[in-house]
C-alpha cells in the first residue's frame, strides 16, 4: 500500500515538473496504406515532445465511413478524442462546428503565420462565420482522368477536353470493339464521377452556386448534368457496382477500358502498388471540361471542446500545419501539402504537377468527400443516384436532390 502511494506521489510530482508530458489521443481512419504516413508524423511529434505518450486510435474503413460513426458515439457520450481527423469543409462545419463542439483555431493560424501559407479558397472552405476550425494536412484532387498514354496512341485518340468530346471518343472506341471505354466502380465512385460531370457541365461558378443555394437542383442546367451523366454511364462497364476503385483502375491498366475518373490517390496506387512511372505507365488530365479548376478534398484535424490534453493537442496541430510536418506526411500518403510552399523535390512527377495546379487553379470543393455539402446531404445523395439509376429519370433525380437540399437546409 505504501509503495502504491509513493508511486502516486511520484507520478503527481512528475506531471508537475514536466509541463509537456502526459498523453495525446489522435483519432483517425488512416490504418491501411496510409498507416506509414501517419506513423511518420507521430514519430516527428515524439521527437519534439518526447515525454508525451501518443495513442493512435484508428478505425478502419475507406473515407472514414466507420470512423465517423464511432466518433459520433464518443462525442455524444462526452468523451472527445484530443484531436480527430475529418474531411475539411462542411463535413466538419455542418456537423461539429454548428453544434458548437469545436474550438476556434484562428488564433493559432495568426500566431503561426499560416494565413498567407494556405490558399484563400481553402481557408474560406474551412471557415465558419469568419473563424477557422481545422488544420488541413493534405490535398487530394477529385477531378482527374487517368489513362495509359501508349494505349491511347494505339487507339489513335486524344484525352477528351469536354464531355461532348468524351462521348465522341467513347463512340469511336466502342466502334473499335472496346465495349466499355470508361472504367467505373461501386456506388461512391459513381457519385465521384457525378461531381466531375457536374463541374464540367456547369462550370466552376455554377458548381459553387449549387452549394450556397443560389442554383437549385431542379434547375434545367442541373437537369442537363443528369442527362450528360446518363450518357457517360452508357460508356461504362455494366458490372460497375461490384468493383472497388482499384479494380476500376486495373481495367484501364489492363487495356479493358480507356479512361477512369478518380481522385489522385489513384496515382499513389499506380506508383506504389503497381510500380508504374507517372507519365509513362499512366497519364492524367483534368476530367473533361474542368481544366483550370482544382476540385479539392482535404483531410484536416480539429480541436474538440473539452479535451483532456489540450496543450498536447495544440502542439499536434502546430506540427500538422508546419511545412516540415506536411512535407513529411504527404510524399508517403501520395497527396500534396495544403500549404503552397511545399518542397517539390520531395514529390513525384504527378504530385509536382498537382502542386503547380494547386497554386494557380481556381479551387472548388468535392461533394462526395465532404468539402461542400453537409453529411446529411452527402450521405442521402446516394438515394438520389439510386432514383436516377432505377429509371434514368433526370427530372426525378433533380427533384429528389432539391427536396433533400431543402430538408437539410443546404447553403443556409
Amino acid at each position, binding site marked *: 500500500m505504501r509503495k502504491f502511494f509513493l508511486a502516486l506521489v511520484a507520478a503527481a510530482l512528475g506531471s508537475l515538473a514536466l509541463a509537456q508530458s502526459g498523453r495525446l489521443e489522435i483519432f483517425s481512419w488512416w490504418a491501411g496504406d496510409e498507416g506509414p504516413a501517419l506513423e511518420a508524423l507521430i514519430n516527428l511529434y515524439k521527437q519534439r515532445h518526447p515525454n508525451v505518450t501518443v495513442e493512435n486510435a484508428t478505425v478502419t474503413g475507406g473515407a472514414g465511413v466507420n470512423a465517423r460513426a464511432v466518433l459520433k458515439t464518443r462525442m455524444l457520450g462526452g468523451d472527445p478524442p484530443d484531436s480527430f481527423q475529418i474531411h475539411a469543409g462542411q463535413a466538419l462545419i455542418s*456537423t461539429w462546428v*454548428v453544434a458548437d*463542439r469545436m474550438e476556434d483555431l484562428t488564433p493559432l493560424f495568426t500566431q503561426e503565420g499560416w494565413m498567407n501559407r494556405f490558399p484563400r479558397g481553402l481557408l474560406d472552405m474551412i471557415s465558419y462565420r469568419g473563424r477557422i476550425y481545422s488544420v488541413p494536412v493534405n490535398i487530394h484532387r477529385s477531378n482527374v482522368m487517368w489513362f495509359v498514354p501508349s494505349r491511347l496512341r494505339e487507339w489513335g485518340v486524344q484525352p477528351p477536353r469536354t464531355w461532348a468530346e468524351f462521348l465522341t471518343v467513347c463512340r469511336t472506341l466502342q466502334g473499335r470493339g472496346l465495349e466499355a471505354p470508361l472504367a467505373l466502380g461501386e456506388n461512391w465512385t459513381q457519385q465521384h464521377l457525378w461531381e466531375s460531370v457536374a463541374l464540367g457541365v456547369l462550370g466552376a461558378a455554377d458548381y459553387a452556386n449549387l452549394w450556397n443555394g443560389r442554383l437549385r437542383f431542379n434547375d434545367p442546367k442541373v437537369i442537363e448534368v443528369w442527362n450528360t451523366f446518363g450518357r457517360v454511364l452508357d460508356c461504362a462497364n455494366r458490372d460497375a*457496382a461490384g468493383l472497388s476503385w482499384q479494380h476500376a483502375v486495373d481495367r484501364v491498366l489492363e487495356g479493358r477500358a480507356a479512361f477512369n475518373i478518380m481522385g489522385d490517390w489513384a496515382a499513389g496506387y499506380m506508383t506504389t502498388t503497381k510500380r508504374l512511372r507517372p507519365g509513362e505507365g499512366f497519364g492524367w488530365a483534368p476530367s473533361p471540361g474542368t481544366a483550370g479548376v482544382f476540385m479539392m478534398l482535404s483531410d484536416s484535424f480539429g480541436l474538440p471542446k473539452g479535451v483532456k490534453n489540450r496543450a498536447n493537442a495544440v502542439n499536434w496541430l502546430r506540427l500538422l500545419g508546419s511545412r516540415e510536418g506536411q512535407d513529411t506526411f504527404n510524399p508517403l500518403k501520395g497527396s500534396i501539402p495544403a500549404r503552397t510552399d511545399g518542397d517539390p523535390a520531395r514529390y513525384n512527377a504527378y504530385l509536382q504537377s498537382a502542386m503547380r495546379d494547386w497554386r494557380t487553379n481556381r479551387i472548388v470543393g468535392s461533394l462526395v468527400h465532404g468539402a461542400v455539402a453537409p*453529411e446529411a446531404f452527402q*450521405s442521402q445523395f446516394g438515394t438520389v443516384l*439510386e432514383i436516377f*439509376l432505377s429509371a434514368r429519370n433526370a427530372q426525378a433525380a433533380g427533384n429528389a436532390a432539391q427536396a433533400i437540399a431543402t430538408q437539410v437546409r443546404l447553403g443556409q
Partner: protein
Amino acid sequence: MRWLKNRDTLYGFLVILPSLVLLGIFVYVFIFQTFYTSLTDWGRDPAQALALDPQLRFIGLDNYRELFTGFVDVRFRQTLVNAFFFTIFFILGSLLVGLGLAMVLDRSPRGEGFFRTIFLFPMSLSFIVTGTIWRWMLQPEGGVNRLPTLVGLPEGEFAWLTSREQIWQVSWNDLPFITALVVGAILIFIAIAAFRGSENRRAWIATGSAALLLLWAFTLGRNLQPLPYDEMHGFNLAFIGIILAAIWQMSGYTMALYLAGLRGIPEELREAARVDGASDWQLYRRVILPLLAPITLSAMIILGHISLKIFDLIFAMAGADNAPTDVPALLMFITTFRANQFAEGAAIGTILLLLVAIVIVPYLYSQLKSEVRR
C-alpha cells in the same frame, strides 16, 4: 404481501432482482427512449444534431409519416419490401432444405454422423464470415459465374449482388388493398378450418372480421392513397445471392431441429401406418409431417426474427451502400450515423421492433399459455 412470508420466494426474488433491474434499464428503458426519440426532430436542425445537450422538439408521428409517404424516403419503402421477400424466401428455403436433409439422414445412411456435422457446420460461422465467403463466390467475374465453364458452357453473366432488375412490381398505393385481401383470405381460411372442427364461436368471429375487412378493402381501402403518384416496388433479383447464402448458413440448423423431431416420432406409429397399408408418401403426408408442425412453427419464428433484423450478412456481402440489397436495419444505421438523422433512424428502429414483435409475441403468448396449462 403474503408471498413475501415464504422465505424461498423472497430469496428467489432477491436473486433475480439485479438482472430484473439491469434488463429493465438496458432493454426496456432504452426501447422507450428510442421510441421517444422517434417522436422528436433530433437531426433536422444540424446545429442541434450533435450538440452536447441537444434541444429536441416533440413533433409526434411526423417521422413515421415522412417514412411512409415522403418523396425522398422511397428507399425506406423499398427496404420494407426487400425485408418481406427476403423473409419469405429465406424461411421457405431453410425449412425445405432442412426438412429434406433431415429426411435423408433419418434413414440412417452410412456416415450419418459425418454428414450431420457437415450440414450443421455453416451454422457455427458468423454471418460476417459467411458473407465474406459468398461475396467472393458471387463476384461478377468469379466463382459461381465461372461454374458453367467447367462443363464447357459460356460464363454466367448474372450480377448476383448488384443487379437492378425487379420483378413482381406493385405500386405502393395498392399495398393497403392487397394487404387487406391477404389478411381477409387468411381469416376465411381460419373460419373454414374452424367450421370443420365445429368450433362455432371461433368460426363466426373469423367470418365476421373477414367480412368487415373485405368490405373496408373494397370501399374505403381502394381510396386510401399514401402517395399522390404510383411508386413501384418489387423483388430485387440482387437478393437471390443473399438468400442463397442465408439458406446455406441456416438450413443445417433447421435440419437439426427436424432430425430431433423425426427421431422423437415413435417407431410404433410408423409401423402401425405401414400395417394399415400406407405408402411412404402417405406416411409422411398423414403421420410424420403433422407431428412435425410444432417444430416448423418454432423454426419459422426463429428464422423470421433473424431475417427481419438481418444486418451483418448483407453488410459483409454487399456493403451498406449497395441500394439493391438494402434492408431496414442497414438503412437505420446509415440514416443515424452517416446522415445524422437520429430521430428518423429511431423511427426505423421502432418499426423494426414492431415487425419483429408481430412475429415473436404470438409465439411467446402461445408458449406461455401452454406452459401454464402444463
